[in-house]
């Protein structure tokens, strides 16, 4: 056994299966007659993630080159669908109608002589260019999503195993670090107890900005890992700014932190209630 990524695979599910299904049965033909029940059509429409998805489906179904979309034909089909939906009193999301308007506009612009361009480029602007780019982008998105879905996923395709660690695990000895201790006291003296005038250098990274980022991160979730708010690429300066930002936020009771186990990850968490506007000078804290 040596195959790459040997995490168990799920049965390979087909991702982009745009064949509409009604009650599980594939609907191969476009619904041309009006005997299709309205709710079946509604279910069919629900299969699509929006107008881009529906358009891509039409294009794929008819084996159309996405770069050479016959806009007139595709627009007609698209509008046919919408008309059918409307005749069945199916409420369409605004996005579908917006797409209809856009397609119609592109169609009419295709009929006009190409607009002359300001720059020297030879190719005139194709009215379809933006549509094509958006379709391609959406297609990339669906394929990326398909790839993610096929990726063996923890909790679906494989599960962590664990035995309980022995309870007599010796507590790791904390080394006595006198230099660290002295540095810590020195830092405290500077920050708080003894305040003296000192020279302040300009900061390249804004503490306030960083504080905001941390607050925003904590607005989304009640807590986050301390490691998440550090940006490795900012180097020591970044570490300092982030640390000061975290400390300042803690000082103003905007957040607090906890550490579940000694030496474990530090979790920052939002304090219940309001998140006060951090009161800090734009310079370094004392």
């Amino acid at each position: 056994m040596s195959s790459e990524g040997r995490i168990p695979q799920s049965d390979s599910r087909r991702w982009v299966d745009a064949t509409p299904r009604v009650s599980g049965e594939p609907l191969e033909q476009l619904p041309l007659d009006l005997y299709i029940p309205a709710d079946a059509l509604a279910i069919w429409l629900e299969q699509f993630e929006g107008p881009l998805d529906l358009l891509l489906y039409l294009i794929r179904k008819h084996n159309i080159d996405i770069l050479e979309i016959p806009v007139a034909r595709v627009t007609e089909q698209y509008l046919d669908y919408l008309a059918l939906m409307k005749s069945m009193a199916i409420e369409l999301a605004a996005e579908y109608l917006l797409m209809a308007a856009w397609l119609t506009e592109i169609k009419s612009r295709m009929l006009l002589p190409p607009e002359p361009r300001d720059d020297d480029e030879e190719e005139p602007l194709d009215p379809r260019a933006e549509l094509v780019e958006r379709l391609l982008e959406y297609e990339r998105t669906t394929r990326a999503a398909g790839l993610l879905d096929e990726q063996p996923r923890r909790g679906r395709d494989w599960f962590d195993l664990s035995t309980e660690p022995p309870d007599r695990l010796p507590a790791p000895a904390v080394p006595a670090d006198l230099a660290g201790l002295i540095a810590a006291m020195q830092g405290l003296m500077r920050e708080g107890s003894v305040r003296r005038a000192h020279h302040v250098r300009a900061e390249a990274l804004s503490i306030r900005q960083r504080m905001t980022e941390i607050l925003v991160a904590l607005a989304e979730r009640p807590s986050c890992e301390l490691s998440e708010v550090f940006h490795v690429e900012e180097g020591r300066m970044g570490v300092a700014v982030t640390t000061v930002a975290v400390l300042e936020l803690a000082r103003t009771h905007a957040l607090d932190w906890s550490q579940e186990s000694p030496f474990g990850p530090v979790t920052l968490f939002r304090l219940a209630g309001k998140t006060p506007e951090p009161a800090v000078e734009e310079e370094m804290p004392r």
Partner: protein
Amino acid sequence: MTEKAPPSDHADTPVSSGSEPPEGLVELVEALLLTVDEPLSLEALSTMVGQETAPELLEAALVRVAKRWQSHRFIELANREVGGRRVWHLVATAAVAPYLKAGDPGRVPKLSRAALETLALIAWRQPITRGEIEAARGVAVNPQILKQLAERGWVRSLGVKDSPGRPEMLGTTREFLGDFGLNSLAELPDFERFAGQDDIDV
């Protein structure tokens, strides 16, 4: 508690006795794979077991562990490449999923297509704003989906963008990488490669 043999058991067997690992070593490797939370490389195993155990012997022990679980219906020794190193871990296969679900029906909700597409955009295009996701998908982003992705620990805010409206920028977490068996975002194939005429019938 049953009295277990002392850990030194395998150590007194000659270390270089061909490639047949002593049983104690096999069991130690197995126990380490089960006890340590993350997949283990040969180097990591070697640090734990002791440098005096030859790497070939460790490898042989891994092969033996794999064999021990080969016929097991629900568990196997998996390995993958992490930054040029092979790492090993014992995992349960998808076959246990229905049973786990029976024990905890709320467990592992399925990802909708909309959620997967949103997650894909966040993964490939981060930092990305909600507006950019909406533009790419052509539909409004359902806040429930972002909430779901955040709750699973896959998506987080990267701060706000310094542009009008100060939109929030989204990105993926380390947990996302771990859950999808990725070592880094660099392992995701180039997004641009997903478009093309050739394989339109994906």
